[in-house]
């Protein structure tokens, strides 16, 4: 297994993690809602791979940056709702400034390239 591949995944994971944290900062939400919100917020530029999203959610939950519990959605569907924890909020603040510069640079590059088709391979 090439280490290069590892690095790339880590980088993209970070991106998705940050997007999730940011979305959840607005309030508790279930996975489908998070995916929709990210797509909408990014003006449909980001396509969120749902499989990756749920694995990322689980990872963040394992890290205790977010908390989850089963609940009922506005249209009466059973759904798993995620909430940002205090630890997650700290991470969000910390990572945001760090990522802002990077994403600006990425944005500049990506804008020149029609934007990415996927956030994760």
């Amino acid at each position, binding site marked *: 297994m090439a280490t290069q591949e590892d690095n790339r995944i880590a980088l993209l994971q970070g991106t998705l993690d940050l997007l999730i944290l940011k979305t959840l900062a607005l309030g508790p939400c279930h996975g489908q809602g998070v995916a929709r919100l990210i797509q909408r917020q990014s003006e449909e530029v980001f396509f969120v791979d749902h*499989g990756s999203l*749920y694995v990322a959610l*689980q990872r963040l939950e394992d890290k205790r940056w977010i908390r989850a519990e089963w609940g009922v959605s506005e249209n009466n*569907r059973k759904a798993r709702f995620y909430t940002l924890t205090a630890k997650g909020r700290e991470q969000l603040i910390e990572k945001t400034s760090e990522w802002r510069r990077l994403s600006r640079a990425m944005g500049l590059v990506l804008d020149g390239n029609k934007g990415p088709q996927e956030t994760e391979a």
Partner: protein
Amino acid sequence: MFRRRRSAEDFAEEIRSHLELEADELKREGLGENEAQRKARLEFGSVRAAQERFYLRDRWVWLDKLLRDLRFGLRSMRQSPVFALTAIGMLALGVGANTAVFSVMNAVLLRSLPVADPQRVVNLRTSRAPDRVDRINDGDMFSYPVYEALREQKDALSEVIAVGMLSADKVNVRVGGEPEEAEADMVSGNFFSGLGVKLARGRGFTAKDESDHAQVMVISYKYWTRRFMRDPGVVGKTIYVKGVPFAVIGVAAEGFEGTDPGQSLDFWIPLQGRGEFNVLGRPAKDGSAMYLADSKWWCLRLMGRLAPGVSREQAIARLQKVFQTAAYVGLGGPMKGERLPVLSFVDAKNFPGYEEQAGSPLQVLMVMVSLVLLIAVTNVVMLLMARNATRQREFSLRLALGARRGELLRQLLVESALLVTAGGLLAWGFAEVATRVLGRWAQIESSLAPDGVVLGVTLGVLALVAVLFGVLPFRVAIAGGAEMALKTQSSTSNAHAGRTRFGRIAVALQMALCVVLLVSGGLLARTLWNLEKIPLGMQTDGLVVFGLNPQKVHTEAELVQFYQELQRRLRVLPGVESVTVMQNRVGSLWSNNSNVMVDGKNPDLGKRQPTIVRNNDVGPDFFHTLGVPVLLGREFIDADTATSPKVAVVNELFVQTFLQKQDPLGHRMNDMVIVGVVKNHKYANVNEDPMPMAWEDYAQMKAEGAMNVEMRVRGDALAMLPMVQKIVAQIDPDLPLIKPMLQRAQFEETISQQILFARLGEFFGLLAVALVATGLYGTLAYRVNMRTAEIGLRMAVGAKREQVVWMILKDSLLLTAVGIAVGIPLAMLAGRSLASVLYGVKPLDWVSYALAVAGMVVVALAASAIPARRAASVNPLVALHTD
């Protein structure tokens, strides 16, 4: 981390809910029911993949995979049991032999004494003992005055520990009613405290015990276990030693069995002052213990603990003068021109002295077993490579189906670990047995049980081997690449020329190593042959010997009477030809050595030759019984008594050394008249060089308590012993026969180490041959198999069977030639390091080399016979049709 894990079902549930939510939203956006569900699912991508990734996030996955690989490995081992058993067997032999030899080497050469801070403990040595003193050994024995002087120098050695042997082998003890034998030392009061040996029970000795000559004893843990079944009530018990009661005051810590080479002692008592407790059981002339009063009797072994902050060199510097003065107490100073003895220290190892004696042979042995291991490991690697080459398609298919190379490597490593674990377990069992056998052969009584170091080294070797077995065949396994799965012809897919290069190099290398082992084995075998052929100068057939240590006789006259009476009774036994007694048993490595006066003068032989004469106190009929020819004069007779003129018998070399061309009879040695000259013969061991020797009549000397009785009998000599025991019991019912055995066996004991090395050398040589033959056979058989189609084609176009057979034989003979060419220089190196243990054979003995080369060629031909036959019987039509 310790939270309840989230179940896979819960995750699946979440995904289902996602799809529903998404479908709802899409319907709201105006899609139809079916279309919405379809699109939601489409957008999600592979649900299975997401679930798998959730599952993989689990940190126990590796275990899961490991178990799967293990199951797979076991299955594939079951499918080729011959391969698995061969590999495991070879590994077990190779590693086991290594562990066993390393255990012994570790115990003998590396392990320190089980004492506190062993680096600070030293054995004292002297370059020589002064002239005019009696000594047990030159070099490691000191007199009591030296001990007294050295222990005053606290700024050099904070503790000086004295050890005196109670007897040459065992002493009589009585625990309950029956007489028994036990091995014991007499030690200074600081023995346990100074060495820092803990007591499992009770207490050790004190300085007061030494000065009072207290009748107390500390028993060894082994003796406590063996004799008293670890009875905690042993402390306080009374044990009679030589009829004198001693109170048990303690049990030494487990693992401490004395400070002597390879010995395992039963108990220790403080230095004693009574006559019967003289060192080596030598009776004292006038009540006082000779070793305490006699500065001319160098009989104590000394150990020391370096004072804090003092280096060895500093300690020696501080002690040298004191030592050289003390060495001449009672001698009135050194003789004119006498070289002063020089004190030195050596490491206090578990086996002091063994380093010089057995060190280099053991190292050679270690190298030999390492070579065997190397051959065994190469064999297994070749086996694995051959096997994995046939599994190439399996691997290619798996690569083609998306398995990663890492996964294949992991699987190979797991399979190798399985082999190595099985082989390792077997090896450990094998090593345990082999170590015990080695220890018995080498006459090492103390524990050789593999310790942590041995275990560590063995595990290290196994781990290395496991990685090797996994990684090396990996290259072969994946050499085909994924595309090979598409090929169907076994001939094309296997015709990989480079692959067999490794096998050929490995076989040639093995053969080189095998030559080394065969040559070494041959040299050792010839050494053994020579040793067994050495003329002893006596007739050992029919000689049986045993020791006695009579307790109920107290004066010299009584002792002589005891032995005379015994001899008288034994001589009349049917089948007994003659009987004699001797103080030192011949062939037991023991000898008395002293300086002598010839015709009232110290003989002047010039500086290079020491004037030491070996002597022994013997009874009448001694030379007749042993079968040693008397060349001049007479030997001892019953008429030589304490009151008759003192007489001595000397050997030829004595005459040559001290009397040159004069008629030796009538000359005086010390206060004795020389009445006879006998042919040179062996005294202490088989391979000693002849030394000037003198024999005195035991009845005219300070009689010794313990003596050995030698009998020449007709027929089965050992069968005579029960009768002998009865006769002895008539005189003293409490007297055991000490080490009764054939005289021949007694002499063989002195070369047991050489015998051991020779047998091991032969064994390793044969083992190597067997391993190499298997390896060569495997490689050739494999190659013939691979080349079946080619051979068929050759025969189809007109090659004769002989040509095909020659093709295969040429191959293996070429490998043999290369192996021999590389092996001979290596064997010459090995032979040179063996030089010290060889006897009567030069390291460059051409016979050994010729035999090794011939052996190699025979093995090569034998191993290639079957593959060659198979090649010759290839049916061209069938071969060409196989694919």
